[in-house]
């Protein structure tokens, strides 16, 4: 499985200054990775211990740089969900 969906990567390239909401899966200590992500320019929303992942907001340019870090194993869009009844 690729680290990032090619379509999403293209969106980052097309909008390097746009802000994206992403979920980043990391290896290693989650708190240390969280701090590193903040240092890289990400606004960290939450960290998830169950899956060792972090939800962030960052620019397209920052997102592109994330994928070059070996301890980042996957980056995906923070997608919309909806209720299934009414």
């Amino acid at each position, binding site marked *: 499985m690729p680290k990032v969906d090619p379509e999403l990567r293209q969106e980052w390239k097309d909008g390097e200054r746009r802000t994206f909401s992403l*979920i980043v*899966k990391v290896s290693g200590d989650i708190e240390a990775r969280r701090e590193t992500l903040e240092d890289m320019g990400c606004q960290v929303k*939450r960290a998830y211990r169950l899956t060792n*992942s972090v939800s962030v907001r960052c620019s397209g340019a920052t997102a592109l740089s994330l994928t070059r870090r070996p301890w980042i194993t996957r980056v995906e869009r923070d997608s*919309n*969900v*909806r209720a299934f*009844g009414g």
Partner: protein
Amino acid sequence: MPNPRKLSDELLVSLGRTSADSQIPVIVRYIPDRVVMRAKGPTMRGVSESYNYRMAPLVHMHATPEALRNLEEDPEIVRIYRDLPVRALMDTALPIVRAPQVVDLGYDGSGIRIAIIDTGIDVDHPDFSGRVAGTADLVGEGPDDENGHGTHCAGVALGSGAASAGRYRGIAPGALLYSAKVLHRSGQGMMSDVMAGIEWAVEQGVHIVSLSLGGPGPSDGHDALCDICDAAVESGVVVVVAAGNDGPGSFTVGSPGAARRVLTVGASTDEDAVAPFSSRGPTADNRVKPDLVAPGLRITAARAGETELGSPVDPYYTECSGTSMATPLVAGICALLMQKEPQLTADQVKARLMATAIDLGEHPCVQGQGRIDALRAIHDEQGEAPDTGDPNDGSPGDGTSPRPGCLTSVTSLFTRRHKG
């Protein structure tokens, strides 16, 4: 000739079955501001008014077929509906899945903790009195339910029916309720907030997580939301997820319904057919989903205060449809089973419910293993193996294995049906 634009479908059916001197109960919608004049009293032969609604231009009345034809010609009348009996959760859905028989055995979910990850709950609803063990607001709107969806789901799973003298009781009224608000009042939200709600619920030590939400299909079950659902199961929590309402097309199960280890629930009708709107498998990577189906059509359960979701029955209850309603029903049955057999693992609970489901004769990517049956699950009655319906593979799908024949089979199934 009846005017189909004014008479509801149900009323047209009733008209054909009613004698000339019998009266049909109807609800008449007038153009705005005209209903006040109507309230002065009926003047038309064959009509007797019984109630004038104050919040909408509606009048409840009884009318003979001839009177209805005259009412149709009234330019101040917009629409005439047949007054229909409402269906109670206790009256229809619970007996279908044989939950009352399990309650009679002494199981009501006591000692089991259920998390509803949704739009929040109405903590003041009498049906949850004394059983709200924890709430979390992960969207910054406060824990109250301003949509109504979460409260309804909670009512289906574990409502006591206190505000209806037990009529609209849920499946496991002894269970404790944990509510994580992850969807906004609009009923929409972000995957990251749902993930936080699931993690919060696991940290609270819940036994069951119920998720009546998701994204569009298809999903291959490899996204972050599916991952955290599977991780919750790995930690010992039963995760029950709605398949979605994007049926009847195939490949309509999204995330997190496509997660491998969750129990994915489609919706069935009171007639034990799979609801047309219920999302169908296979998943994007050609696995069978849903895992089973449960009643999800016109379910009456708790209504959050000052909300208008579904078709309100009274201030405390409303009627809703969707795989959202089928899901907490299954979560409630999980609670009954886990009360009886607390040693079961999350995977074993899922396997038991699937293995004891009633085969509805549909393809596995439509019905899963069939419609849930609480009594068979409690007694572990696996006698008659459900038909998997897959000509390529005789083994039951458990959501973890690719099913190469699924795509072909489902496509041909729908093609056949479309051709009639």
